[in-house]
């Protein structure tokens, strides 16, 4: 007992001492405990400094966190169904998940790119990729919703994507898995990889005004695996760099067979040259394709799918000056371009050094034809002729590099589980910190722009283990924020993330927050099924389709008593939320619905298809707590037998209880 008392007193004294220390000016090299909490703390009611858009990996969605607090602000459904928000369940959003394979309910979202103007984030859109069924998506940052999804033909696994050029001229999509081109000629033996499999790089143009994507052209290259890519910027604007692996061109047991070469390649693509070739008519028009282009319109609150059939292909082996290979050790993942555009960092995930290439040396090497042969008809620049230098013994398994804007780079290491800071000019290692555990991508706000915001670096880790309370066999993934404002990187916060975070980007809040849409103006709603005011609420029968035009406002539906619907009918609930106030969505759910709910934003119309499966009276209700009378926000729909003579009727507030007892 006495001992315990001493211990407690001692502990209190220690607390006191440490708080006295907090009053002192802070040095740069504090331990994790010193001031870490303050650096990540954002007081209640205060806003974060950055929006952090983080890939949701195999959830198929895009998550949004605040930095430095690590608070989850939003999960934006993109490639996967989201019953919570009705995404892919409402009639209006179903077309967004349409592909040439039909409606695909899931994908694997890996990388995130904020749109850029002059090499800086402009806060308009976020582009993301689907790794399984190859697609690109654009998320609108006024609504934080997916506005467009484009499928990619001749591709198998869109991993090397959605990296963008410095003015968002193009979003690229390099195929991870090389495949034979689409169509019946693709019926070839798998072991004819070298002969028949092609590595397609898609260049998708982006309309400056509305962001609409269009497959501008594809570059056909020898079959390899494309991993990541980055656009040149500044001096290297006009070029694109893709990392490759499996230059062994293996089609089985890649774990062994694609790890034989000491060096794979970075593919340098001169996309300005590609534009010249296109103009000169050197592209080959390919027809007979099928790929989906889905667009969501925020005026009609409806999406549409258009199937496209053509593309233009440039052959990298035939068109001189379009592509060059640069040898890079070993199975490179990241290929990252520094803020000036001069230095290109390859991160060989099976290598124990980091090669840094020089854009000006690459140009000289091309001029002087310093080649060491060809691969599939494309010249290979001599390693030494392209190399600026190597970072020696940085760690094991470099994956990805971002830049702090102060002349330094920070590289993530998967195998040795650490972040390593090094100087771009002298290639000397300056600092290293352990990560928990095994970092994949890392991110500095603006870390791929011309002027990074070198205040934080976030590590997105692949393994969590003991960092959080155990939750059974699977744990949420984890991210870690480090303060990098001083010479030493300082861990300030761990936070859990959804799915598996791959790449992420962060933008200063002020570039986005004031443009955020708060309501959709009901007067501008052009949905053909919109109900503009309660007096237009109604039920219409069209054959066996029954269209219910509902309004919702705190806290009732109109109509809320519906009769005359029969078994065998398909019921479409078109719900218009006639609220015009921020953060006032209403939900809609009906018993037995075999899809999801609707979540309808103020001023919006959304439709739930419901096929009743039995006779009876079915309640429907608002799912999103809207007012003190939310629990009263309900209605009934009566289902009669087929051929019943109960007429269609509907009302709100007038179908009063019959008097009398049973």
């Amino acid at each position, binding site marked *: 007992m006495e001992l315990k008392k001493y211990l407690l007193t001692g502990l209190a004294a220690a607390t006191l001492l440490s*708080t006295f220390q*907090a009053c002192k000016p802070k040095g740069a090299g504090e331990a994790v405990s010193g001031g870490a909490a*303050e650096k990540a703390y954002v007081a209640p009611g205060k806003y974060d400094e950055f929006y952090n858009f983080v890939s949701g990996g195999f959830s198929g969605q895009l998550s949004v966190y605040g930095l430095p607090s690590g608070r989850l602000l939003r999960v934006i459904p993109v490639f996967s169904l989201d019953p919570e928000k009705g995404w892919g369940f409402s009639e209006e959003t179903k077309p967004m998940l349409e592909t040439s394979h039909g409606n695909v309910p899931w994908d694997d979202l890996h990388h995130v790119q904020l749109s850029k103007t002059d090499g800086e984030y402009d806060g308009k859109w976020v582009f993301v990729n689907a790794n399984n069924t190859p697609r690109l998506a654009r998320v609108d940052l006024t609504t934080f919703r997916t506005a467009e999804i484009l499928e990619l033909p001749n591709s198998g696994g869109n991993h090397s994507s959605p990296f963008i050029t410095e003015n968002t001229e193009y979003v690229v999509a390099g195929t991870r898995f090389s495949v034979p081109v689409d169509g019946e000629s693709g019926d070839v033996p798998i072991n004819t990889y070298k002969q028949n499999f092609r590595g397609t790089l898609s260049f998708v143009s982006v309309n400056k005004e509305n962001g609409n994507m269009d497959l501008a052209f594809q570059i056909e290259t020898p079959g390899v695996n494309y991993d990541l890519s980055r656009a040149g910027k500044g001096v290297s604007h006009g070029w694109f760099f893709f990392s490759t692996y499996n230059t062994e061109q293996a089609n089985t047991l890649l774990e062994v067979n694609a790890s034989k070469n000491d060096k794979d390649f970075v593919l340098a693509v001169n996309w300005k040259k590609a534009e010249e070739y296109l103009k000169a008519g050197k592209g080959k028009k390919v027809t007979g394709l099928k790929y989906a282009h889905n667009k969501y319109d925020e005026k009609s609150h409806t999406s549409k799918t258009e199937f496209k059939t053509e593309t233009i292909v440039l052959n990298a082996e035939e068109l001189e000056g379009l592509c060059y290979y640069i040898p890079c050790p070993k199975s490179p993942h990241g290929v990252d371009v520094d803020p000036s555009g001069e230095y290109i960092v390859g991160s060989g995930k099976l290598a124990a050094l980091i090669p840094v290439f020089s854009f000006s040396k690459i140009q000289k090497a091309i001029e002087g034809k310093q080649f060491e042969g060809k691969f599939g008809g494309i010249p290979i620049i001599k390693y030494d002729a392209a190399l600026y230098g190597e970072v020696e013994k940085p760690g094991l398994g470099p994956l990805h590099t971002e830049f702090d804007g102060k002349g330094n780079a920070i590289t993530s290491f998967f195998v040795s589980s650490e972040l390593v800071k090094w100087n771009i000019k002298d290639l000397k290692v300056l600092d290293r910190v352990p990560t928990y555990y095994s970092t994949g991508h890392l991110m500095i706000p603006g870390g791929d722009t011309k002027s990074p915001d070198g205040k934080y670096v976030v590590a997105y880790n692949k393994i969590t283990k003991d960092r959080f309370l155990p939750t059974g066999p699977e744990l949420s993934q984890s991210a870690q924020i480090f303060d990098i404002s001083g010479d030493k990187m300082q861990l300030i916060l761990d936070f859990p993330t959804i799915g598996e975070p791959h790449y992420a980007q962060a933008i200063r809040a002020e570039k986005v927050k004031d443009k955020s849409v708060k309501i959709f103006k009901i007067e501008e709603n052009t949905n053909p099924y919109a109900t503009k005011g309660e007096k237009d609420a109604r039920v219409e029968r069209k054959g066996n389709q029954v269209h219910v035009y509902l309004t919702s406002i705190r*806290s009732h539906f109109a109509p809320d008593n519906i009769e005359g619907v029969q078994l065998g009918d398909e019921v479409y609930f078109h719900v218009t939320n006639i609220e015009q*106030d921020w953060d006032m969505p209403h939900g809609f759910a009906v018993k037995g619905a075999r899809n999801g709910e609707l979540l309808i934003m103020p001023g919006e119309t959304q439709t739930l298809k419901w096929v009743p499966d039995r006779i009876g009276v079915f309640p429907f209700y608002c799912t999103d707590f809207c007012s003190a009378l939310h629990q009263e926000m309900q209605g009934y729909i009566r289902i009669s037998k087929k051929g019943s003579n109960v007429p269609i009727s509907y009302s709100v507030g007038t179908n009063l209880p019959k008097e009398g007892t049973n």
Partner: protein
Amino acid sequence: MKKLIVFCLMSLFMYACSSNNNEKKEERTYAEESAPAASDASTYDPHRGEGKFDKVEVGEKLDVSMANDGKVIADLKCASCHKMTDEKLVGPGWKGVSERRKPEWIMNFITNPDAMIDKDPELQAQLEICLVRMPNQNLTDDDARKIYEYMRQNDGVK
């Protein structure tokens, strides 16, 4: 044990000192968007309400076209909850409202409901009856004026 509590309290105090001195933190976070310039309850004018309308010009006679426009807007944005009679639906009926209330009060309330519900004693009494705060229906100044004219028409102004 008492000593421990004293120590902890002192620690808390010292912590407060350290966070007050932390200027860096102030730079880092933004204040939430400042609410529209609001007077406190003591300066609240229960006749005018609170909002952008100080003096509304109202004609002797009804402006019929304005009232007709007002009906269209009200049908879309207001009629779900308000009847034109004196019957309460979600909110009170509109019969007689233009006689009970000054135009400034009505137009301020329908364009700035949240601030007024928080301050106006009569609105607070009304909230106890209705229990649903009147939604902000994002009316323009022009919308509000037209709706007021429609209310006048409903109250028999010719």
